[in-house]
């Protein structure tokens, strides 16, 4: 119990809060200045290690080259989450308690009744000294011909004009509370709750998120099997990523602006679920698809898949597709160097979708091909679509197929609704904290012989200097209004 108390005190301590924010900030600074494993190639780190082994040893030991997935960073985040949870719990508790102490919601009638009672009994009301917590002001007035209801309305109007609403009556002390931006009290709780949810969602993603990337050729199907993925990243507790459906690429359509920039990429997909039901979808970077809890995204990686048939004497013809990445400029050919599977042939190609004029679209396609075998050049020349390149007296290579390929990203993360709600809550909380600071003005009526003294006081949870100016204006308005109905003395 004592330990829990100590832990609670530690997590809620102001120094802990500031230290945690500082520590997370410094970690981020380290992560953005020291090269991270996720952002650089393994060769880079090999070179670094070879160049300065001692420094690299320390960096690696402290996990400074993988800050965001390091054990110490996760502990830091877990501590921040605990601190946030405690803060949210105790802030909410305090707010709910404060609401419970409130006597009751004031109605318009009770506000009038209260004033009526005082003023009917004491027709002569002279201003006296008054004081209030936080801010002080003294107002008063002597009643003349004006009716009680009228006066009550006027006082209320003054508060209303300032954006204040009467909401509490503490009858014993004859005190009325006018509040402005009451929702603002909850700003801090909502903001911290939002942050907590964001952290929890991130931790959930780190534990269970599945992400995979495939290069899908037009008229090909992605079966969802392990070997079909081009790359895959699984979270700590995610064993395998099988989306549970098949994706067939009917058509891929890239479109371009007049300055060669990509305008849009569109994939027409047929998704077939495990029961064999097929559905058509149109995928673009602006419109990902959600299917059975998995989101499919259109990648900006795409290009041409060139199909070649290798005819070898004494063996079966082999058809292979070679995937080339699209270039940014249409006057540049698509280039690639790859080996022909199960042979020693290496193909070096430059593909021109249109040999007559630069174009992204394959209208008159041809490929400048260089084929080498064990370092010896077997062919060099231009091969047009459907033409054959003779590699030697026995082998030949035919250019038989051109089609698009495109990258598709599959993501399964059930924590996304949490992320969205966390983001919304933290934004809403920040708005409530800073744009709607909670302000309170109370009006108290006390008797002093034949005189009735009206005191107003106020407080704000933010921008006190600005509230002070607002309060002064409010007090002046009140004074002015009461002064119309009798003598008004202010000291």
């Amino acid at each position, binding site marked *: 119990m004592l330990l829990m108390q100590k832990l609670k005190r530690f997590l809620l301590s*102001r120094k802990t*809060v*500031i230290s945690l*924010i*500082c520590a*997370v*900030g410094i970690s*981020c*600074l380290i*992560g*953005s200045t020291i090269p*991270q494993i*996720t*952002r650089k190639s393994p060769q880079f780190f090999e070179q670094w290690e070879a160049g300065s082994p001692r420094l690299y040893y320390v960096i690696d030991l402290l996990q400074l080259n993988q800050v*965001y997935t390091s054990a110490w960073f996760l502990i830091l985040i877990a501590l921040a989450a605990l601190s946030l949870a405690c803060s949210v719990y105790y802030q909410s508790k305090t707010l709910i308690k404060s609401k419970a102490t409130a006597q009751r919601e004031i109605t318009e009638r009770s506000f009038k009744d209260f004033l009526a009672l005082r003023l009917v009994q004491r027709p002569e009301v002279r201003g006296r000294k008054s004081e209030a917590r936080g801010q002080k002001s003294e107002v008063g007035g002597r009643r003349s011909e004006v009716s009680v209801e009228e006066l009550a309305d006027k006082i209320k109007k003054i508060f209303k004009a300032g954006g204040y609403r009467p909401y509490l009556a503490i009858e014993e002390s004859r005190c009325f509370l006018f509040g402005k931006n009451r929702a603002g009290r909850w700003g801090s709780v909502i903001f911290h709750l939002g942050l907590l949810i964001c952290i929890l969602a*991130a931790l959930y993603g780190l534990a269970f998120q599945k*992400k995979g990337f495939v290069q899908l050729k037009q008229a090909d199907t992605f079966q969802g099997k392990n070997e079909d993925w081009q790359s895959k990243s699984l979270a700590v507790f995610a064993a395998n990523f099988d989306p549970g459906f098949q994706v067939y690429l009917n058509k891929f359509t890239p479109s371009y*602006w*007049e*300055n060669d*920039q*990509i*305008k*849009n*990429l569109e994939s027409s997909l047929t998704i077939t679920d495990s029961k064999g039901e097929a559905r058509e979808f149109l995928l*673009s*970077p*602006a419109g*990902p698809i959600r299917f059975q809890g998995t*989101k499919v*995204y259109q990648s*900006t990686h795409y290009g041409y898949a060139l199909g070649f048939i290798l005819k070898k004497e004494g063996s079966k013809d082999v058809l292979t597709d070679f995937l080339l990445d699209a270039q940014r400029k249409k006057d540049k050919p698509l280039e690639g160097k790859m080996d022909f599977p199960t042979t020693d042939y290496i193909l070096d190609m430059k593909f021109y979708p249109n040999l007559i004029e630069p174009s992204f679209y394959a209208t008159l396609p041809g490929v400048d091909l260089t084929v080498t075998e064990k370092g010896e050049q077997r062919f060099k020349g231009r091969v047009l679509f459907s033409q054959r390149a003779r590699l030697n007296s026995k082998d030949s290579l035919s250019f038989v197929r051109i089609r698009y390929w495109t990258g598709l*990203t599959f*993501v399964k993360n059930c924590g*996304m609704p949490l*992320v*969205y709600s966390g*983001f919304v809550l*933290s*934004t809403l909380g*920040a*708005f409530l*904290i*800073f*744009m709607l600071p909670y302000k309170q003005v109370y009006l108290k009526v006390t008797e002093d012989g034949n005189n009735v003294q009206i005191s107003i006081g106020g407080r704000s949870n*933010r*921008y*006190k*200097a*600005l509230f*002070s*100016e607002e309060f002064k204006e409010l007090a002046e308005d009140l004074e002015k209004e009461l002064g119309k109905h009798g003598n008004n003395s202010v000291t």
Partner: protein
Amino acid sequence: METIQLLKYEVILHWVALFFYLFSTIFFIRHVTFKHEKSLKVGLRLALIGMIPHTIALGVRWYAVGHGPYLQQMESFSSTVWVSMVMFLVCVYKVPRLKSIGFVILPCCLAMMILGIISNPWVSDQLAQALDHGRLEKGIYARAGVAKVPPTFCGVWFVIHITFTVIAVGAILISLGTAIFYLLKKKKSENVCYKRLPSLEALDAYSYKYAGFGFISWTIMVVSGALWAEQSWGRYWGWDPIETWALITLLLFGIYLHLRRFFKWQGEKAAWFIVVCIAFAIATMFVIPFVMTTVHSQYFL
């Protein structure tokens, strides 16, 4: 009218706006440095008049290129200046005693405007021709032309992200202005032009208020950017340098706000701290994209 013709007009209008802002800056500096009262009014009027050609220039560019002013470097600078100016003028309209903060805001806007105009592809071309007598065929020339909207630049989150980025800059500039005037007023309280300003406590509160508004806008910028990234790439956070630095700035603002609330850091200490926060915010927006490889660079530059 041809696009290129419209873009020439746009550049001319941007230059006109720049000159108004330049003279406005001079008058604001004159007001604070030489305690010249009339200069304040003139400076403000010049800034207001400068907004007219600036608004038309942005409108013309929008019409000519077919997308809002957010894609190219010069568009980002110009729209940021425009929003900052609007926010400054609205702030001054609501709190006339804050007119003097133009002394801080106008030079910042002027610097951004100059950077924007220099990075305008058409201006770059003219400069390149003038400097190299038409011999230069590559390099700066290669930037000529109008950038078109990539397929990922769409959706409500993207619009919110862009909008709140520029609003955040405007808010933190006003906060910077009030913080600097707090420091100046505290140092030289007898100066006539500082007497027009609100009290030290009020200046401090205004700085806090606009820092708070900047914090909200910055939060919305980060959040909407994350949601936009999730919509476009399937990940909402990738520790990209800009994302990381935006988070660092947000954390720094968080420290500032906590220090104010819990440790009663007010006045001078808070004013200096907000200057540091703003330095980080400016570094995040205008330095990091140039010095680090980030997903933002390919669009912003």
